[in-house]
């Protein structure tokens, strides 16, 4: 089968409309909102602060701890049951991995930097939206960073490579979901997951599409940070 047009009328390499804002949670040390289509994430950073339980403390480095969560009415179907699930714990972990390589917490031994990511509204691409918001929140909190991370999902619907899949595309039969996070300056990949059936040859094209799309996400991030700090 060949896909001639995307379900929502977008071009194959077109992202949904994006919005970003920095400093949305006043009580946090840093925070950001990132919205892409109907997927909206809010991230807040607390710390560096003292780390409990004490056995997790590392005298050589601070700890980055991420928590991804979908609020109860964020899904378009049934209510999401509160509390951690296997899925949310895994996403928290890969989010940590995606951000760990670009933050430098060596000046905060024994401390923790907590990143809380809440998905307010979802229409696929939630882990990517969460990572994109979290990276901005870390920058807003003044955490030393070597690079910026932006994330986007790419994938395949029928025979076409598409970027920023919505829920309908994500759940399409034989669809491929391929979330990627990329460090903006070094161009290195800090998150990579894939679900679906794929040919080896497709990887190059998918990564190329992801890099191009991530650049656009990065522009939105930078604009939002500038809006707060260049006044």
């Amino acid at each position: 089968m060949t896909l001639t047009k995307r379900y929502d009328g977008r071009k194959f390499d077109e992202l949904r409309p994006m919005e970003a804002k920095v400093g949305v949670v006043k009580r946090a040390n840093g925070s950001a909102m990132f919205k892409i289509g109907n997927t909206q994430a809010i991230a807040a950073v607390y710390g560096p602060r003292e780390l409990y339980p004490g056995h997790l403390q590392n005298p050589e480095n601070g700890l980055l701890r991420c928590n991804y969560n979908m609020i109860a009415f964020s899904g378009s179907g049934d209510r999401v049951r509160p509390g951690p699930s296997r899925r949310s714990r895994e996403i928290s972990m890969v989010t940590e991995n995606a951000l760990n390589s670009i933050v430098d917490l060596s000046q905060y031994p024994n401390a923790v930097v907590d990143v809380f990511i809440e998905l307010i509204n979802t229409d696929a691409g939630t882990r990517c939206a969460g990572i994109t918001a979290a990276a901005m929140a870390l920058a807003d909190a003044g955490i030393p960073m070597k690079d910026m991370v932006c994330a986007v999902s790419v994938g395949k619907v029928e025979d076409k490579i598409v970027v920023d899949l919505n829920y309908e595309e994500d759940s399409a039969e034989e669809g491929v979901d391929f979330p990627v996070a990329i460090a903006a300056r070094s161009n290195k990949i800090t998150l990579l997951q894939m679900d679906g059936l794929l040919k080896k040859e497709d990887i190059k094209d998918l990564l190329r599409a992801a890099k191009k799309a991530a650049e656009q996400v990065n522009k939105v991030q930078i604009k939002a940070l500038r809006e707060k700090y260049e006044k």
Partner: protein
Amino acid sequence: MKFHLKNLIEKDIREDGRKLDEYRKIKVEYGVSTSAEGSARVTFGETVVIAGVKMSLGTPFPDTPDEGVLIVNTELLPLSSPDFESGPPNIKSIELSRVVDRGIRESQAINVKKLCIKKGEQVWMINVDVYPLNDAGNLFDAASLAAIAAIKDTKIPVIKDNVVDYKKKSAKSLPLEGYPVECTVYIIGDKLLIDPSTEEEELVEARLTVATYGNHLCAMQKGGNKALEQEEIEKMIDLAAKKTEELRKLLK
């Protein structure tokens, strides 16, 4: 700082220039979520709370076979304050859930009999979830206002072949007959005040949350360790009754 704030309050002065019985600027926005059947975002100054309603089909409780089920839940997201921690709900979050829940439930503002589809077998379950996104004080009043605003915003989804079709919302609202609203009156020293900031909350010795509906009181909860005189309680209720009228106007 604490000492300074307390001294000010004794002279009827607040840090931000408000009167003791004055709310911060309140804003109520509806339809803030596309996934919920109804939603609202309420801000009291820098305090931000969102609430959403999810509806599903379920079996009624055996003692109320012809009534729909309403459940209000709040979760103190660690995102919203350095004082909140991840993990199972703590007592602060449970109290907030229950106080908001009772204010709405006891008012009987939602005609739950109209939420019965088949007696003893199938009724609508209404889950109202409330989340602070920034706790800058007075979550009780903000959460209860957000909850009732989200209920007001709700459109019942369509049922197709005995399954809820969440993509199709009917034009039908919930059977809501009025707006129960809560006001919490706080005591610092011998002064009564409402809508405290985070810093003021640390000074609070006792509080009384009063839910009103029409010209009735429908739920109350005293918090804090300080014992109160009857006269004080009467004053607190009077103030809360007056203030809930102001809040109710925001919903119209």
